[in-house]
């Protein structure tokens, strides 16, 4: 039963832990595969997710934060969760050290539609730590082999405070590059913050990316998505060209356990990436 059993995770080792934010509850974990075969099998594209699996605690679906162009490892940015029922997996993971081993099941779900994005101008809009799969997308597009396949890239990324911005080094590097326009905003700055202040929807309105041959890729907390979608719609983006990623409680990740459905679609196997046009076809039950 161990061969090709979709429920059995592959072992991975934590090779690096990066503390992303000043509240220390969001960390990026870099994993290397214990079995080299697994690395060959783990072929993914930005936007997909995987189940992080710790025996005795459970499994947790997390978006892949690294890009397929990062050879030899995969990264996941994980927040310590638990509002009503404690997040057992994320807490256990946060308590682990480099060298620890856990299980990984994936890649799961559909990626951002790379072929559809090719030759188009891309507007990437992210908020908070939901930026993970967007970071993967941006890294993928910025890779020297891929950059020419895409048009202009604009990144609009916001967090509540400067300390809560993830991937600070990378953001700084992007800001220096000429082939990507990076706009970073915080809801409320501090004494050292010299960048923009303001909510993501307002900033989007302000920046007003052109809808001409452009696709908006949006991911963030529900309230940000709720207010950002209309902004892009007003800017003239068609519903097919506004993409977002949904979240639901998942267990199996392969469309069998039946809990992550929105209408007739399973978020895990039919999503998590949906265009606004697709979402409008589904009942508002998420």
């Amino acid at each position, binding site marked *: 039963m161990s061969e090709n059993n979709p429920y059995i995770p592959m072992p991975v080792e934590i090779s690096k832990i990066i503390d992303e934010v000043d509240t220390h509850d969001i960390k990026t974990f870099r994993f290397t595969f214990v079995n080299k075969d697994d690395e060959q099998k783990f072929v993914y594209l930005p936007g997909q997710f995987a189940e992080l699996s710790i025996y005795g605690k459970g499994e947790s679906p997390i978006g892949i934060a690294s890009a397929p162009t990062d050879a030899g490892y995969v990264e996941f940015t994980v927040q310590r969760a638990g509002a009503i029922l404690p997040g057992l997996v994320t807490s256990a993971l946060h308590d682990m050290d480099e060298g620890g081993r856990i299980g990984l099941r994936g890649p799961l779900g559909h990626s951002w539609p790379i072929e559809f994005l090719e030759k188009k101008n891309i507007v990437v809009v992210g908020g908070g730590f939901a930026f993970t799969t967007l970071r993967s997308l941006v890294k993928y597009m910025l890779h020297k082999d891929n950059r020419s396949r895409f048009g202009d890239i604009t990144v609009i990324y916001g967090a509540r405070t400067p300390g809560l911005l993830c991937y600070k080094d990378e953001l700084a590097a992007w800001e220096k590059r000429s082939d990507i326009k990076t706009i970073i905003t915080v809801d409320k700055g501090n004494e050292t913050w010299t960048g923009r202040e303001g909510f993501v929807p307002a900033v989007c309105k302000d920046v007003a990316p052109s809808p001409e041959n452009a696709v908006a890729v949006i991911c963030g907390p529900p309230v940000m998505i709720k207010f950002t979608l209309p902004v892009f719609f007003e800017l003239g983006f068609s519903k097919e060209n506004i993409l977002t990623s949904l979240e639901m409680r998942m267990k199996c990740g392969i469309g069998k356990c039946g809990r992550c459905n929105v209408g007739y679609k399973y978020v895990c196997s039919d999503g998590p990436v949906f265009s606004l046009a697709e979402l409008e076809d589904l*009942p508002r039950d998420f």
Partner: protein
Amino acid sequence: MLVLKKTTIDKLPELAACLMEKGTLVAPVKEAGGFNFRAITDAAQVDLIFHNTILSPKTVFFPQTEDFVRYSVYQPILEAKPVEPEIRPTFLFGVRPCDVKSFEIMDIHFTRTGVPDPYWRKRRDATIIFGFAFDTSEEADPAEFYHTLGIGAADPDGSDVFMLRRDDVLFLKAVSPRGENLLGGLAGLTDAAPDERKYFDDYIAQGHDYKTRYTCVDAEAIAKEFEAIFHNTDFWTKVSNACLSCGICTFVCPTCYCFDICDETQFGQGVRRRVWDACMFTDFTLEASGHNPRTQVYQRLRQKICHKYSFHIRKYGPISCVGCGRCTRYCPVNIDIFSIVEQAVQAKWYKRM
């Protein structure tokens, strides 16, 4: 060639013993609360004088708990061992036609689409199904409505061997090649006489005339109808006012497949297993972030009914319901899925036709 054999009800233990030699026999057994399918340990346990079981025969292919991996929290992950399920040739004996139909519907979900589920597939492949016609001389149970779903009281489709009882004689007909092979090798069965063959064929043909509750349901149309009333909160509140939001209807249902994956650790040793879950439970969709898209009873009942009569149709084609009536029969407050469907049918499209 049509193989039709017969035996008598009092010789049932002999037939059971014969099957038990060849593998595991799963058959209806009378228990304290009613009948259930159980692995038979004593041939005399098999009891065919039943209407239908409490839990559906899906328990054979999709047991309530299925172990995936055994692990120890003290040992590295590489020491975790996948659990090899013990799967022997199985004879699933005495399954009602509507339940046989449910296997076909579940096959679509588990093995015919997406990533196949290895456990369902292996168990399914190892099993020979003995369908068993309803007794059409009895009055139908008021909860049943398989007629609505186009299933007859004596449909042999999907079975490997199909059985029917005439007083104290039990006829067994091979439906599939596997069934034919099996029947040929079973001792103690005698060939049926020509007039009995006629009786058998007539009985099956007449199965469709046997009336359970009926309403005109067309898969495509009903799917659309439920989509149209999905946001009609008044309708859903009304039908769910009585709902207790327990898990009975989903646990007894032959086509409900939702499960949870849990890690259960005792004394440092644990097993990761899947356990049935129910969309009626409050924490079914509760995310770790605290967000729960279905906090209200009406949302959960709506999910259940729309899943069966709308989402499943759009995703896989058939209606995910076989009209066995279990959910209605065991509901502590008599919520009836048939009445809800009927109300939805009467709501609009039926009138338009």
